[in-house]
């Protein structure tokens, strides 16, 4: 049976145990008139208790088995390989195990090397045994669990408390997924980056000005030394983000001011959601628009006034990205402007200030920390944005701040380095993780700063 089949059987078994457990507990209970054998909990809780005993241990084993079995089987298969194949470097061994897996997936008959054929047969044999054993172990465990659970059905068992405890632990586990995700991100990105910096010095990466990640696959290949100076990428990212923020911050902020201070409730009720549509449009749509409409438009306009604009100019990507961030900026600013107490505005009006004077000299200074926070969040959004730049910005790493030329960004390079098939251990692939680390650290700092500023500011007026 495959994992899905086992899961389905398991849930049927659990439902069945619930039903049996509930029935059994009801049968145990006798009305108070006849001796009064009262259950501690409602019958349903006894049912849940049996279902938990039946389902959860089996489920845990199933998960562990599914996750671990593949690497164990691979190890066992490799142990059976001829010795000359075994005594190879780690890269080679992982390559061989991949080949074996491919053979099993594509049909063993396609094998050319007899040793590989034997290994593939061994692998698929072990896989079959593992699957069989998994089915048996999990289902037996479920039945044992069911038997244990049934023994707990006594009027004195505090079934509700036990079930609630389990629920509580499950909830804690769910909440802990957030921690696990962060740990997963940090470890995966960090480990690969450390391996990358083992091959390429960190200073070369951080301060080098030449980026061409094409490493030679064979030693005798020409022109594939590969250099990993990330400065052009950082500059390109900053350039496009700066253009985006130059569009998004004024437009977003002024929109927020108009909506919160001037617009009638009617206008606000319709315009605010309309603006938020912009935030809901998938980024790939913006990318398509930038690449096929905005970029040619900018190039044509440039040609008309005698400027030589690259067809994948930073300007096009930046402008479209700016539009994408407008609603983000405006809704965050809107929140902080609304949080400024009305009394401060009234004080200013009382002194005879006009509305715009009040906004400029009272509301905005009071809301400034929040707006700075919004700005930082918008910046982190711009730096991490991927699809628009992948589709509309270039691939060549030019070190320039001219918005009319093509530049490339950190996210574009991550995507180009990691899409398509390649070995996992080459410096080229690992470089993507080093870029990811840089991206993660920068956006994390921006986010933490922004959240701190916003929180401080909130406390001030609450």
């Amino acid at each position, binding site marked *: 049976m495959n994992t899905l089949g086992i899961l389905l059987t398991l849930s049927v078994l659990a439902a069945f145990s619930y039903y049996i457990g509930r029935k059994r507990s009801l049968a145990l209970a006798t009305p108070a008139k006849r001796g009064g054998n009262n259950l501690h909990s409602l019958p349903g809780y006894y049912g849940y208790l049996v279902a938990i005993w039946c389902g959860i241990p089996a489920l845990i084993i199933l998960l562990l088995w599914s996750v671990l079995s593949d690497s164990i089987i691979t190890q066992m298969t490799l142990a059976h390989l001829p010795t000359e194949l075994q005594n190879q470097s780690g890269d080679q061994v992982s390559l061989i195990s991949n080949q074996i897996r491919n053979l099993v997936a594509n049909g063993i008959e396609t094998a050319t090397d007899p040793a590989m054929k034997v290994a593939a047969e061994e692998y698929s044999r072990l896989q079959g045994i593992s699957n069989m054993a998994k089915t048996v172990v999990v289902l037996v465990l479920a039945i044992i669990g069911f038997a244990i659970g049934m023994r707990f059905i006594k009027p004195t068992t505090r079934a509700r408390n036990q079930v609630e405890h389990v629920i509580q632990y499950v909830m804690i586990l769910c909440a802990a997924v957030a921690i696990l995700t962060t740990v997963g991100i940090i470890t995966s990105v960090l480990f690969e980056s450390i391996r990358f910096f083992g091959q390429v010095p960190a200073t070369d990466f951080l301060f080098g000005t030449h980026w061409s990640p094409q490493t030679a696959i064979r030693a005798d290949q020409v022109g594939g030394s590969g250099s990993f100076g990330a400065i052009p990428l950082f500059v390109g990212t900053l350039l496009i983000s700066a253009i985006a923020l130059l569009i998004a911050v004024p437009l977003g902020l002024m929109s927020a001011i108009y909506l919160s*201070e001037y617009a009638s409730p009617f206008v606000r009720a319709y315009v605010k959601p309309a603006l938020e549509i912009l935030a809901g449009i998938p980024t790939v749509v913006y990318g398509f628009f930038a690449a096929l409409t905005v970029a040619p438009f900018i190039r044509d306009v440039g040609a008309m006034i005698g400027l030589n604009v690259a067809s994948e100019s930073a300007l096009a990507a930046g402008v479209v990205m700016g539009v994408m961030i407008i609603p983000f900026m405006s809704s965050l600013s809107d929140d902080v402007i609304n949080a400024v107490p009305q009394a401060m505005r009234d004080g200013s009006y009382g002194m005879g200030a006009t509305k715009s004077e009040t906004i400029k000299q009272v509301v905005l200074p009071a809301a400034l920390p929040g707006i700075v926070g919004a700005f930082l969040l918008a910046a982190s959004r711009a730096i991490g944005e991927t699809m628009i730049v992948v589709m509309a910005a270039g691939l060549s790493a030019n070190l320039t701040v001219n918005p009319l030329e093509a530049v490339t960004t950190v*996210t574009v390079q991550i995507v180009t380095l990691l899409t398509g098939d390649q070995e996992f251990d080459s410096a080229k692939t690992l470089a993507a993780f080093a870029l990811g680390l840089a991206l993660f650290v920068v956006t994390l700092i921006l986010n933490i700063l922004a959240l701190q500023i916003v929180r401080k500011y909130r406390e001030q007026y609450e």
Partner: protein
Amino acid sequence: MSTTITEKVRASLGKRYAREKRFRAYGFISIALSLMFLVLLMFNIFSKGLPAFSSTYIKLDVTLDAQTLGVTADATPEQLRTASYNSVVQKGVQALFPAVEERKQKKALKSLVSGDAQYELQRMVLADPKLIGTNQTVWVLADDDIDMFHKGYVDRTAPEADRRIKDFQLVWLDKLEAEGRIDSQFNTTFFTRGDSREPEQAGILSALMGSVYTMSLTLLFAFPLGVMAAIYLEEFAPKNNFWVDFIEVNINNLASVPSIIFGLLGLAVFIQIFGMPRSSPLVGSFVLTLMILPTIIIASRAALKSVPPSIREGALGIGASKTQSVFHHVVPLAMPGILTGTIIGMAHAVGESAPLLMVGMVAFIVDVPHGITDPATILPVQIYLWADSPERAFTERTSAAIIILLAFMILMNLLAIVLRKQFERRW
């Protein structure tokens, strides 16, 4: 003295009011610009994409005689499948213009119709082998260049070298038009096929099914996880506990981590360490689940928080346990808010593509995926792939796919709005 101040103020009033008006105008212009961009974007996509919902067909008179097909009257289905439908189509096209002799022009003649034409005949014959030996009139798909011409994208006045349709082809097409042999019909191919290198045969079905698989799994994982986490953090978690605070900080930060980082996580952990199948909806949904969890948790917590304490106290007062009060009373009341948050998170996931590029869901997928571990692609990634293709016809199909994607997102957001309006309670 006071008069001079009043006078000063009065004198400056005009300027100040002008400044006020200007400031207000800036705000108005900002909004107008943003909305104008939205309209421009929509107009651009729709004007490009709507024509893709129809495609051009050419009427052919073909003779399905056994000799041309290279089969006998009592052929097995296998023989019927491999019969030479290509030559039937070729003869059918040549019959339209018997005068054409030159080799190059003959080739051009053949490419009036799509490569799909022979498979169309194959499907017909396989469905009804009795057709062999008869004359049939069939509407077959036209080639994408012809399709573009028929939709009016080819400028007849341009120099011949700049056109994909040459002068002699123009003559043919005009003749076909005059005979009523060329026509636009609803583009069913677009909805019933997978990806293809030929624009006229490319469809979104495989990408759509990939999206459906990925999104269902994402919902299946993210909803229980997110809601359980939110309930714990809002209702049960001890206050001022280091770990609880740590979880909250993590959730807030994860909410603003760039999506591509989740893709890196998926590649390094799910694919490299756990050995899950690359390009599969399973891995994609894991990545998307982690990505939208913060959204769901934050929205669900807000919904739970808005349920007044009196509900909890009432339940506790009549003897419910803490867990019962939460699960029987608070959560059902918070459900509309929780669902709204989940739908918004899902709408975000439907349009997301960057992290899925990382886990390999960017393959060229012709077949419709049959399971959660089959290689698949999803709608936004299909859009990304098509956007890279130079053919004019692909641009049109990209826009059409975007229209479908936007329709899904609008539907989901509308659902969220309706839910909120219908069930929102003010306490």
